[in-house]
């Protein structure tokens, strides 16, 4: 980072985004004030249709805001010329790509578009940047493959490499982990986290991976249904109850202890459970799924988990009768038959 550059990469000032048709405005998110520093990774979360993509497009200068302003490196985004903005912000979108015959390297090379001459001729510095982007995303060995032959994870890395080759201070990604399996989700988020640390780039990700985003994000932006944007560190947002506010549906429950969302069952029976941490966790998981609430108070049904010779054993005490079972499957069968 050069010294004259300010610390703030993106700043939203009373931003209102949405759609304008003639004289009527449809505001989707409004009165937004937030900022992202260089080297910071911010995850934008919120339910479907709450306006995440609209906000991203407005920040990227693709869509005009209804009112207020987006500052990119302290300059209003609409004051940038198209090539200047392209050298500052690069995007990773969910749009389908038309040409499956393009190779990984050709896609990444397209990132140099704002820097090359009218013919798109790659100079040495362009080639170096492309190689760096391929290296850092770990796709050098597949750089000659055509993109229709890639796995979803490799394809996503290719798009991120393209954004890196475009070499802006800011990368904006729209759901980069959608369609990926668990390990690829984590690999991609870890990659983005490392990039923000190592390169000082400001990274903004719209994502539904709330639990993972809590592990990687420096800050979370929550787009709320009341058109507001809540900004804070993940931990502060848990403690002040913002996450429960985001998802207000009786089928879902936010487990503040573990930073995760739970299916909210309506319990019909309750029992008391004792046991070591691991067995307790998974037994209560099975009990909840079967409509049993796990309580700390003394109950007419009590389950005690012991470590036996060949693994865990469950002592089920119900109205004075004790039954011993040797797996959760058996336990569930017994309690459901009572």
């Amino acid at each position, binding site marked *: 980072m050069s010294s004259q550059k300010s610390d703030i990469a993106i700043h939203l000032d009373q931003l209102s985004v949405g759609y304008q048709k003639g004289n009527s405005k449809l505001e989707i998110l409004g009165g937004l004030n937030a900022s992202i520093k260089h080297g910071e990774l911010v995850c934008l979360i919120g339910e479907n249709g709450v306006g995440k993509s609209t906000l991203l497009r407005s920040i*990227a200068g*693709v869509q005009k805001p209804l009112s207020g302003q987006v500052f990119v490196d302290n300059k209003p985004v609409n004051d940038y010329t*198209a*090539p200047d*903005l*392209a*050298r500052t*912000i*690069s*995007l990773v*979108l969910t*749009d*389908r*790509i*038309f*040409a*499956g*015959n*393009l190779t990984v390297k*050709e*896609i990444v090379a*397209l*990132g140099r*578009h*704002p820097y*090359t001459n*009218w*013919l*798109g001729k790659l100079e040495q510095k362009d080639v170096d940047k492309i190689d760096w982007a391929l290296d850092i995303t770990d796709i050098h060995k597949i750089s000659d493959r*055509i*993109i*229709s032959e*890639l796995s979803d994870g490799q*394809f996503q890395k290719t798009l991120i490499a393209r954004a890196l080759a*475009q070499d802006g201070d800011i990368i904006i990604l729209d759901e980069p982990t959608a369609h990926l399996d668990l390990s690829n989700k984590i690999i991609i988020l870890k990659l983005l986290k490392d990039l923000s640390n190592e390169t000082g780039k400001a990274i903004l990700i719209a994502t539904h991976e709330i639990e993972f985003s809590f592990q990687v994000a420096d800050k979370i932006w929550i787009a709320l249904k009341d058109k507001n944007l809540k900004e804070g560190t993940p931990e502060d947002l848990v403690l002040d109850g913002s996450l429960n506010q985001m998802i207000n549906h009786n089928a879902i429950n936010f487990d503040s202890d573990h930073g995760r969302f739970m299916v909210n069952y309506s319990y019909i029976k309750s029992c008391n459970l004792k046991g070591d941490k691991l067995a307790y966790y998974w037994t209560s998981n099975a009990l909840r799924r079967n409509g049993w609430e796990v309580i700390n108070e003394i109950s007419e049904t009590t389950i005690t988990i012991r470590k036996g010779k060949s693994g865990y054993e469950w002592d089920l005490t119900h109205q004075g009768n004790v039954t011993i079972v040797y797996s959760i499957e058996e336990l569930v069968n017994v309690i459901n038959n009572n």
Partner: protein
Amino acid sequence: MSNKTTGIIGVLLFVLVILAILNISIGSVYIPVEDILAVVSGKNIDNSGWQNIIIHFRLPKAITAILVGSGLGISGLLMQTLFRNPLAGPFVLGISSGASLGVAVAILAGMTMGWGLTQIGIGGSWILTISASLGAFAVLFVVVMVSMRVQDSMSLLIVGLMFGSATGAIVTVLQFFSKAESIQAYLVWTFGSLGGLTWMELKVFIPVIIIALGGSFLLSKSLNALLLGDNYARSMGVNIKKTRFIIIFVTSLLAGTITAFCGPIAFIGIAIPHLTRLIFNAANHKTLFPMVILNGAILMLACDIIAQVPGQEYTLPINAVTSVFGAPIVIWLVIRRKNFSKSFAN
């Protein structure tokens, strides 16, 4: 450009030269290759009849075939990339329908007003060329106007198709009120013809096509960005509206001029970009452009050779030959390569 690409282009160039010579030599009269080479290099040959045939008939026709094939191939490629649609071709914007309407008005209305066929002059007359150009450019004008108003390329595609249907309907109405011989004259025009251009007309045709082809080459950088979609292209600093305007203008210039001079030539424009992508596995426009130009020229020359039915007096309509012989090639390739759809999606 990679060595492989340079090699492919070299081979294609070689094939093009061979076919061009074959194309000139074959016809109702066979002319030996040595004589062709002699005439083309500016020497006089003993048989002045042959010399006449080469200079005034076969050479202009071969040049026309090369330019028509390249021009239609490139305009098809431009449309397929702009609309990200494998069914797009040079005429999706309604250009050929516009030209047909112009010609229909000239022939059908002209005859009704009492002009004879000789006055209209079927077979490479300026009246037909001018009326086709007027029709094509009237449609172009409207399409460009619409393109500045609509946000996305897909709407433009629909508008173009609607234009095609509407102008086609007007032609039908004109035919309904016309005499049999004028309908026949119009039909002959729709068969397409490469042989109608004299050197006089080539003086207009050659520079227009070459300038338009050059213009399309300047677009290759933006077209590559467009492969990723409008949003990505915009995020890389491409001015979508300006690029779209230039693409439409270049396509219309190519397709409009070719249709005006040679009639509506089907198939080549849609097929050549597909053939090129399938055979050479290319997507980058910088390599696609020279390959499409060469492939288009080669296929057009080959079709013209077939149309002449070597050794016979008559020639088949070029429009029928391109489709009858071209379609099986494309079908075979699509089935054999199985990766056809991949070149349009990932």
